[in-house]
């Protein structure tokens, strides 16, 4: 048993500088996650604003332009949340962007776009729930003080909503980080692919997979700590 583990450890990390697969893999995984998060946040905020603005209208005074964008947003949410992320990735790479060459840059771009669009759908609903959780009286107060709708949103509603949804957003970020492991299907060498390559070379399964599990866990724990700090900072002026 010990001997097996020792060989496993040697073959996984030391032989032929195999540890470099992990180092480079972490880089790709983090890069993909961070860029996808930015796209997801941007998309999510836009969609959430459209959806909540539409939903907060009075029944008899509905804006048709807003209604149109609301339908678009609804289609986006339905399609993206209704299909598996791996299928979306395969479609993006082999159908939509079939002409792309398999350079690392292209593959990262494809992964970032897919996960950004995917994540945006979930972020949109999280942020919308945050906006809807703010009492309607806040908007009324802002408007009656002479602030425009946009200013009330920007300076009153969103900051409070953001604080409310931070835990859910953190959750989404963690899911995103782990979900990037499916980029292996398009051949991108992320952390999971690194372990798979080592397994294919050496036929060692135990050590490489336990190793990447530990690395993912460590990354998530660091994220959780950072998010926890941020949450505490934002709650400093709360009277809870």
């Amino acid at each position, binding site marked *: *048993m010990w001997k097996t583990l020792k*060989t496993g450890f040697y*073959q996984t990390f030391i*032989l032929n500088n195999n540890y470099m697969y992990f180092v480079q893999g972490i880089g790709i995984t983090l890069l993909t996650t961070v860029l996808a998060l930015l796209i997801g946040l941007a998309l999510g905020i836009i969609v959430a604003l459209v959806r909540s603005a539409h939903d907060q209208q009075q029944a008899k005074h509905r804006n048709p332009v807003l209604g149109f964008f609301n339908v678009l947003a609804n289609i986006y949410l339905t399609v993206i*949340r*209704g299909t*598996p*992320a791996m299928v979306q990735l395969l479609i993006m790479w*082999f159908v939509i962007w*079939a*002409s*792309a*060459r*398999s*350079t*690392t840059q292209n593959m990262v771009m494809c992964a970032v776009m897919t996960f950004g669009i995917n994540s945006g*759908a*979930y972020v949109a*609903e*999280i942020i*919308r*729930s945050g906006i809807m959780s703010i009492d309607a009286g806040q908007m009324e107060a802002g408007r009656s003080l002479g602030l425009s709708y946009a200013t009330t949103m920007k300076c009153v509603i969103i900051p409070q909503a953001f604080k409310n949804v931070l835990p*859910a957003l953190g*959750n989404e970020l963690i*899911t995103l980080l782990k979900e990037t492991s499916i980029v*292996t*299907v398009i*051949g991108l*060498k992320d952390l999971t*692919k690194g372990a*798979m*390559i080592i*397994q*294919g*070379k*050496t*036929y*060692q*399964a*135990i050590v490489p997979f336990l190793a990447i599990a530990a690395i993912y866990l460590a990354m998530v724990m660091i994220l959780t700590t950072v998010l926890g700090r941020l949450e505490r900072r934002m709650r400093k002026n709360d009277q809870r």
Partner: protein
Amino acid sequence: MRLFEAKSRKYMIEVNIMKKAVAMMMTAAMGMAVLAGCGSSSSAAPASSAASEAASTVSEAPASSTVSEAGSAVSEASAASEASAAETTGEYKLATDGVLTMGTNATFPPYEYYEGDKIVGIDAEISQAIAEKLGLTLEIVDMDFNSLVSAVQSGKIDISAAGMTVTEDRLQNVDFTDSYSTGVQVVIVPEDSEIASVDDLAGKLIGVQDATTGHIYCSDDFGEENVIAYNSGAMAVQALKDGKVDCVVIDQEPAKNFVAVNEGLKILDTEYVTEDYAIAVAKENTALKDAINAAMAELKEDGTIQGILDKYISAE
């Protein structure tokens, strides 16, 4: 409510995978439990001595499963009793009694591929012939190529016959039987490609099937950053057709099939690497390896294996 629906759907995927994994583990554990029963009832040794032997061999038993505590206990006990049965009767151990369970990756024509819902091909037929020689029934399990050896090591399957090449690194973790066929790694390129020989591959993007020897050799020869590994050869060929990669390095026989069904592709005349295919067996299961080698020698002798090879590989 929407929010919860959204999240739960996303988690359902994870939960489903987990459920599947748990189900598989349960099946494995139960299979082993059943086995343990069979083993002790079929072995002539009295229960008490079998138990003591089991106890004595527990420490050496391969801790293949990292399942639940109960699961690993069951599997260890069964592995131990199996090992003792093997010692007393001089026989090999199998994942299921009377059944030779063969793992393969059925995306590799003509060595293994689906015809209807049945897996056929050179490896399937040779394994069938070996199983018949040994008086066993053959059961074929389809899985990812790079999971095969782990499955052999953990005893989920007895043998892996998937056009596997013997390499030094692999020999450290698994045993191979005698070779039954020679494989050649070739290069597929589009017909109008500027690649004329293997020497031109430097600096080009090379598509391969994940964890195959083509993958390993190309990574060593042309640099990791130029090699893109796909889950199946078919996906690599699709990438080649889309122009995502400049060429695909894969075994000759599947390559012929891919070129036959996809227009505008050709195989380079110069071969990349020549290698030996063999069946992988778990390291501690030498009795099974010896039995297969003996059966294979007989099958080579009477021309069965050559017949199977000729049936699938047409000499051009």
